[in-house]
């Protein structure tokens, strides 16, 4: 396994915590023609507070990897820690609680509940975390403000454009202040300009909230937003590059 890791990046930021740490992760799926190996030993380390992008050809295992990282898919072997916790090793209840409190999700298809208002959709993660309804909705409105949808809280999602719906999804992913946000192709359902704006928004808000962003994407136009690019091929991480410019700009900003 010749995979490079981003450990040097974490070291450079001194005491910064590690958001994701995977070692030798494998995952196979059963099929009629025998097992399909989606992950063949993944080593990956993502420092906290960064925007990490996972890129690679179709079928190389990107979605599988972030599913394992987020704890919604069981790995076959290896270890995987999110902020030092091995989700899979936790009792089932705590697994769910950990996911509910620590991880935010953004999906390609948004997966907003169509019959709920925008604000109620955004409030859902808080409700899952047993925040009172009223408080949850207040915080949802505040988060919508941040993503530029201040006046749209009472609309149904269907009245919003694709870009606006993805902004709702971002608000939902961030509303409970999770430390890690995983996104699968967050811009691929959007046109180019909208995608760029969404990405800029995601980076700004994530930086603001101090969260870590793990994005799977094919969309090379959003690559400049990354602090770190992990390239995958055939179930392995084959290359990791740190984008010094972006990370440097970040550190300069946070040092002010």
């Amino acid at each position, binding site marked *: 396994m010749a995979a490079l890791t981003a450990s040097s990046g974490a070291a450079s930021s001194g005491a910064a915590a590690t958001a994701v740490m995977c070692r030798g992760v494998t995952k196979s799926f059963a099929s009629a023609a025998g097992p399909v190996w989606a992950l063949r030993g993944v080593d990956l380390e993502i420092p906290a507070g960064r925007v990490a992008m996972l890129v690679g050809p179709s079928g190389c295992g990107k979605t599988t990897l972030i*599913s394992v990282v987020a704890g*919604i898919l069981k790995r076959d072997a290896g270890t995987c820690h999110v902020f030092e916790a091995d989700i899979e090793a936790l009792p089932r209840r705590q697994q769910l609680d950990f996911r*509910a409190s620590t991880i935010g999700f953004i999906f390609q298809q948004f997966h907003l509940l169509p*019959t709920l208002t925008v604000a109620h959709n955004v409030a859902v993660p808080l409700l899952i975390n047993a925040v009172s309804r009223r408080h949850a909705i207040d915080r949802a409105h505040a988060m919508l403000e941040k993503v530029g949808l201040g006046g749209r809280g009472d609309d149904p999602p269907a009245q919003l454009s694709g870009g606006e719906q993805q902004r709702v999804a971002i608000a939902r992913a961030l509303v409970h202040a999770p430390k890690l946000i995983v996104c699968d192709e967050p811009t691929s359902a959007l046109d180019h300009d909208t995608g760029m704006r969404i990405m800029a928004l995601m980076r700004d808000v994530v930086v603001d909230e101090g969260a870590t962003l793990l994005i799977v994407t094919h969309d090379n136009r959003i690559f400049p937003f990354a602090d770190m690019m992990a390239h995958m091929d055939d179930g392995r991480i084959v290359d990791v590059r740190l984008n010094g410019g972006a990370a440097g700009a970040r550190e300069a900003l946070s040092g002010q």
Partner: protein
Amino acid sequence: MIHIALEMLFGDRAKLIAIVIGVTFAALIMTQQPSIFVGLIMRTYAFLDDVPMPDVWVMDPGVDYVEEHKPLRETALGRVRGVDGVAWAVPMYKNLQTARLPDGQLKAINLTGVDDTSMIGGPPKVVAGSLGDLRRADGVILDVEAARRRLAWRDAEGVLHPLNIGDEFELNDRRAVVVAIAETSPDFILLPKVFTTYSRALDYAPRQARQLTYILVKAKEGEAPADLARRISTATGLKALTAYDFRWLTIGYWMRNTGIPINFGISVMLGFLVGAAVAGQSFFNFVRENLGQYAALKAMGLRNGVLVRMVLVQALVAGGIGYGMGVGLSAAFGTAMRGTVLAFAMRPELLAFSFAGVLLIVSVAALLGIRQVVQLDPAVVFRS
């Protein structure tokens, strides 16, 4: 999250309406059909309800239901009166006879002869004339339906004449004069009802049918009717039943010997199945269409237990609305049909029955939904 579940349900109008229509249909059929059934069954013993005074009815051992008329010997009356615990016992004549109307038409009628002196067994509510008028020569009382419609006759010009007080017709070729009109409960055989005194009834009856039919018995103060009935039975060898037992004997007869319960049973079953299919299918689709969202919720850490509760609440609320509407429609139907020939008795037990049926539908629907969400793999959220 329960609030969210309800928002999901009420937000999807089309599905909600389909589910509610299914449940409403089932609840309506499962309430209305048994109500008609019970209404019909209650008619089979309506005569007992019209004669509430006696505690015990004595009859030929072969009698199986209220309108089965078998002769008793006249001596039976004396023997019954001799049984310990009998406060009083009066005779009653009951049989079908033939009336000849002024236009010559022949009509079958249900003739009741009530005790000459006490008039016990007479119609419950006389609306014109009085019960005592039966003492007048050849006097008979008709029920309202009979007077107005069933025994109405046409003259040569084709004009319809209802029978009124003072009008005459013939019973087995003997003169009968209408002296009063009475309301009676609708019964099952729906023949015109004619009341007269016991002794005159024997005169009207043809020789071979001059018979004592029932002996109506009142128990002495403090005497349990069931005990008295048993004692009369033992002492006389006749069938002696409390009004309650006679009612159930009659119900049992009609239930066993007619297709009525089967017919209604089939209707109820069909209503249940169709309603369950529509509601179950719609609810299943409602859950299925939201599976992507449910998977997202599961990925976000929502527990299965909460999801199960959400689906249960959705099923129960939709079922509750449907049940209310079904029962409401059934009650409206019953109200609209009041005063018509239709039998309808929406008893509280029937509401419990249809409620149980709806609960079954809701449970099955909820189970189908719950199975989907519980088995749902949250990892599918990233597979578009």
